């Protein structure tokens, strides 16, 4: 009897260990990737946007040819059905309109499950602005950094325009403190859709970015063709672009 009891105990202990072990193993395997894509449009949803093409702005009537359009997305987190959040580690991504590849990034090791919301920051948090030399998306080699007035350039729009007195335009938007702060945290609930992460397929979350929005309430490049530091003009431009930046679809 005593022996049988011992065996039972042993089998329970080892059995549960086995189960626990297999559980943790299956957890390890059940992660997946998410692709975050940015689609660029100009002014209205029907006009696709690309660099080195001429566009006439519907509000300022400036003719604009963008040679560069880049911006930071950072601190991505997603919310599970049960309300818990999963944060991406070291979450800093530089988006460029140069190519579909450079306009997207992949988040990996996301626990499998259904997600109902995503939070993200347009710009770079103030701590990282002051944190000194860094690598990856935040490397100064990306030339998205002000060397004389410490801070990241959150958004860089450069190009040419005959309306500008110099023939070109360069808008470098940034600022992380006081009234110049343009670090913008946004959330989307995927318009009610569900994001399903599993090991087998990589879903894409698509966002819409509209470079024309920089001039939604800012003057023609004839009036101002450059911004090179934080301040009120940068706040206006950033608010217009960031405010309009939005979730499009999950695919």
């Amino acid at each position, binding site marked *: 009897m005593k022996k049988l009891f011992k065996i039972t105990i042993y089998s329970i202990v080892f059995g549960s260990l086995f189960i626990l072990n297999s559980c943790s193993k299956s957890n390890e395997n059940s992660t997946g990737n998410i692709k975050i894509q940015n689609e660029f449009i100009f002014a209205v949803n029907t006009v696709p946007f690309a660099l080195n093409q001429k566009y006439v702005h519907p509000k300022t009537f400036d003719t604009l040819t963008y040679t560069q359009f880049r911006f930071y997305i950072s601190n991505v987190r997603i919310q599970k059905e049960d309300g818990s959040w999963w944060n991406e580690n070291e979450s800093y991504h530089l988006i460029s309109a140069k190519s579909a590849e450079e306009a997207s990034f992949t988040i990996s090791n996301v626990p499998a499950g259904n997600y109902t919301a995503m939070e993200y920051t347009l710009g770079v948090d103030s701590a990282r*602005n*002051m*944190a*000194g*030399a*860094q*690598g990856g998306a935040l*490397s*100064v*080699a990306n*030339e998205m*950094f002000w*060397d*004389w*007035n*410490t*801070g990241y350039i959150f958004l860089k729009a450069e190009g040419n325009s005959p309306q500008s007195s110099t023939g070109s335009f360069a808008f470098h938007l940034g600022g992380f403190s006081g009234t*110049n702060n343009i670090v913008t945290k946004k959330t989307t609930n995927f318009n009610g859709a569900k994001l399903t992460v599993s090991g087998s397929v990589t879903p894409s979350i698509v966002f819409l970015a509209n470079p024309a929005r920089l001039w939604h309430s800012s003057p023609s490049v004839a009036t101002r063709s450059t911004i090179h*530091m*934080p*301040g009120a003009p940068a706040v206006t431009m950033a608010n217009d672009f960031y405010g309009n930046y939005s979730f499009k679809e999950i695919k």
Partner: protein
Amino acid sequence: MKWLFILFIFFLSCTPKAKEDFMAMPKHFPKPSYSIKINENKFELGKQLFFDPIFSKDSTISCGSCHHQDVAFADSRPFSLGVRNQVGKRNAPALQNLMWSKSFFWDGGVGNIELIPLNPITNHKELDESMVNIVFKLNRAQTYSSQIKTIYQTDTINSYQVLELLTQYQAALISDQSKFDDYLRGNSKLSTEEMQGYSLFQTKCGSCHEGPLQSNYSFRNNGIYKAGDTDLGRYEISIIESDKGKFKVPSLRNIELTAPYMHNSSLTSLEAVLNHYESGIHKTATLDSSLRNGILFQTGDREKIIAFLKTLTDREFLKTNRYRR
């Protein structure tokens, strides 16, 4: 257990003999703003980079061209010469005890010690180069490839590492061997005149030039700025009206040797500096409240204060081979 111990020994022997933290922190200084451990290998390579003209667009000048050790890594020229002999707009600051500063440059525009080099590198009137191109040139030249291999176990260098190496050198520029330091450590006394000067200095200048570092690193309008000046100092960074004409309070360490003085190099001697504070102050809206009536000196005060200021000279710092290429 035994093999764990053996593994441990093995691990120890595998670790390269890193000469971490080979610079001693001065005990009489406050806590530094940055906790940087100086690694000797990185410091040595950082030093070579500091003096390498590869950092300028036309490979003519280096960091060391405008920051000379014999004058506390400042420049005796009113305004340093950049590439193509272009003249800068502010006096090159001394490089010393940078780890204790919270912001850098006269306007405090740079907020982290590691980012100091970017400013002179990219300024068109200074080195006029880009970090991307410097990294490219360094990797092409391969001058330091064996050192890079030793330090980073890689064949090439990147911008992060270039900044780290320059930081290792600049952070190690610690001046703590002046007569004043000896006095603060309790190792020696100041002369009667120096002591009288120190006491005058504390009451008349010590609210800004405070402590062993000789600065509180705040931004003040000390009456050098005058109506019509184009250099607006801190305002150029903050765009706050009340910052117009304010500049960072510099440390007075090695002040005997770092003439000309002030952001615009307008004063050429310590006597001229004291005369400025007594009777040369320009009254503008942002003038520091402590300077509204100037600073009054009695007969003999100036000499005593200057005698004290000379105790801030650190001959060891100015001469040591450690900082030489």
